[in-house]
């Protein structure tokens, strides 16, 4: 508990150029990821969770600007020279994507896509890269690795593709894996396999994971800690069981309301009444206020600070006490 965090994000803000104006997709986000920890980032579409993830290594379209601090291995990745950043990307921090069918280059065999990673970040020679590629496919559970290495993505099934992508991402033994909705595009049974694979690999390789999802079930199954994002901000964070067991933010509560408490079928977030605000028109005060059943005048005028409620659990809600009380009633 006292160990230094592997990744420390402070006041991360990401803005996009809209020609006439700029909007902030991520506002003043701070969190830590401990070594070996799996942190879940959860939120609705457009909440900024994916942008947050991509901002960490600045994988953003041109016109995007990142400010704040992303402290990794004692260096601030925000403002790191492109050349140094390139070493971090793939070598120390890897990323996997939601849709393996589009994230794998369709015209290159898997081998090339793994080996280019090894080539960029390791000193392995050709034979070494070959061997390592095969080991990686074995590692992620792709049978007949030697043969499949020379196949193209379209020759793989959906789950195998995701495994291949993980193998590629993990090729150079990164210390941190950023997983952007890694299971959304997969069948339910395959989802479990992939999530278990990620957890196994975390243990095996001793890395940290930041997992972006909109699926609270995935969070519950996989993560150690979680952060809930809404309109570009973290509105609640903490250990998975405290947050899910005693949500302190009305939004989290709303999200939980959509998850069947019992039953094996995992579903995604049910919509809460209304829609998230447009990034260019975020209301003053609490951004969630217009959709919140607890909202009072203060919510519409003053933005709540993220404050600790219990040990390692914080929420940005003026009415967190009321929310915490509410759960027992509604459940």
């Amino acid at each position, binding site marked *: 508990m006292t160990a230094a965090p592997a990744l420390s994000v402070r006041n991360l803000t990401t803005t*996009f*150029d*809209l*020609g*006439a104006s700029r*909007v902030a*997709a991520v506002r003043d986000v701070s969190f830590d990821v401990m070594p070996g920890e799996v942190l879940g980032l959860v*939120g*609705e*579409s*457009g*909440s900024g*969770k*994916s*942008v947050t*993830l*991509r901002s960490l290594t600045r*994988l*953003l*379209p041109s*016109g*995007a600007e990142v400010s704040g601090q992303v402290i990794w291995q004692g260096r601030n990745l925000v403002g790191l020279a492109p050349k140094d950043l390139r070493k971090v990307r793939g070598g120390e921090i890897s990323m996997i*994507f*939601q849709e393996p*069918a*589009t994230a794998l280059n*369709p015209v290159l065999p898997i081998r090339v896509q793994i080996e280019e990673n090894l080539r960029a970040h390791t000193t392995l020679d050709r034979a070494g890269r070959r061997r390592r590629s095969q080991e990686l496919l074995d590692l992620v559970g792709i049978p007949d690795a030697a043969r499949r290495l020379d196949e193209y993505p*379209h020759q793989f099934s*959906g789950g195998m593709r995701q495994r291949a992508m993980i193998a590629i991402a993990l090729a150079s033994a990164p210390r941190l894996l950023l997983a*952007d*909705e890694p299971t*959304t*595009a997969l069948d339910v049974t395959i989802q479990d396999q992939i999530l278990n694979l990620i957890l196994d690999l975390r243990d095996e390789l001793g890395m940290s994971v930041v997992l*972006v999802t*909109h699926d609270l079930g995935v969070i519950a199954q996989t993560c150690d800690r979680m952060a809930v994002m809404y309109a570009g901000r973290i509105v609640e964070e903490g250990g998975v069981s405290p947050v899910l067991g005693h949500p302190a933010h009305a939004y989290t509560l709303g999200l939980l309301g959509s998850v069947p408490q019992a039953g094996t079928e995992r*579903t*995604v*977030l*049910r*919509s809460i009444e209304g829609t998230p605000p447009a*990034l260019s028109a975020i209301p003053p005060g609490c951004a969630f206020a217009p959709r919140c059943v607890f909202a009072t005048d203060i919510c519409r005028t003053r933005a709540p600070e993220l404050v600790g409620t219990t040990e390692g659990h914080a929420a940005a809600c003026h009415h967190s006490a009321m929310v915490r009380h509410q759960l027992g009633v509604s459940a």
Partner: protein
Amino acid sequence: MTDLPADVPADAPARSARRRALPAALIGGTVILGLSLILAVFPSVFAPYDPLAFDYGAILQPPSPAHPMGTDNFGRDILSRVIHAYTIDMQIAVLGTIFPFVFGTAVGAIVGYLGGFAETIFGRIVDVVITFPFLVLVIAIVSVLGPGLANMYIAVGLVGWVFYGRIVAAEVKVQKQLDYADAGRVMGYTHSRIVFRHLLPNSITPAIVYWMTDMALIILLGSSLGYLGLGAQPPAAEWGVQIAEGKNFMTTAWWIAVFPGAAIVITGLGFSLLGDGLAEVLRARR
């Protein structure tokens, strides 16, 4: 499967950024083509002279206040001819390409989806059409039907569609591999629904981009055929024919060819902006 749309990575702001940027191309293209359309429909309102009226007293006059674009070897006012040519040239651009675009795209989508035997047959047809000398075809059609623009449409129609067909077929073939097409099949959609509602919208962008280029190219083809005497018939004002007429005066009376040429450039720019704009809209929708 999902109630909420899955969060597309890093996309929400980037996408809206593009949505804000695309009107520039779209608006530009639409404005140019809108103005062109107005000129095409009401040429007489804007043209100062009768485009066909000779004036032996004003032969080969350089641009002046009386004739802002000068006059040709018959003393005809170039400005008026350029304006009146909008009627014919907008017609050429649209009529000459609409059939190839629609037919070629449809055929290409079907061929790309079916693959196999259909693709083989299509390949043979493409070979025949493309390898057959275009000029033999044009001259044959002109000889059988008599000279005029309609023949150009027919000749271009016979040949042009295979370009769209090949572009779309290649694209559909790739799209077909993606999961959503499988999903469509699994969900029991009809073939035509999969092709035209799912595969085509995702494959049509390059065809549209090519189409807009094609519209400028076909006006130029009119010019080339005018050079060979197979396009619009004199004395009709048409840019291609005007440029062909001005060819011998390039050193002595540049204005005969240059202004119609500028009209082609501007109109072509309109089409290409529109094409880019449409392509961006389609991409953003995807």
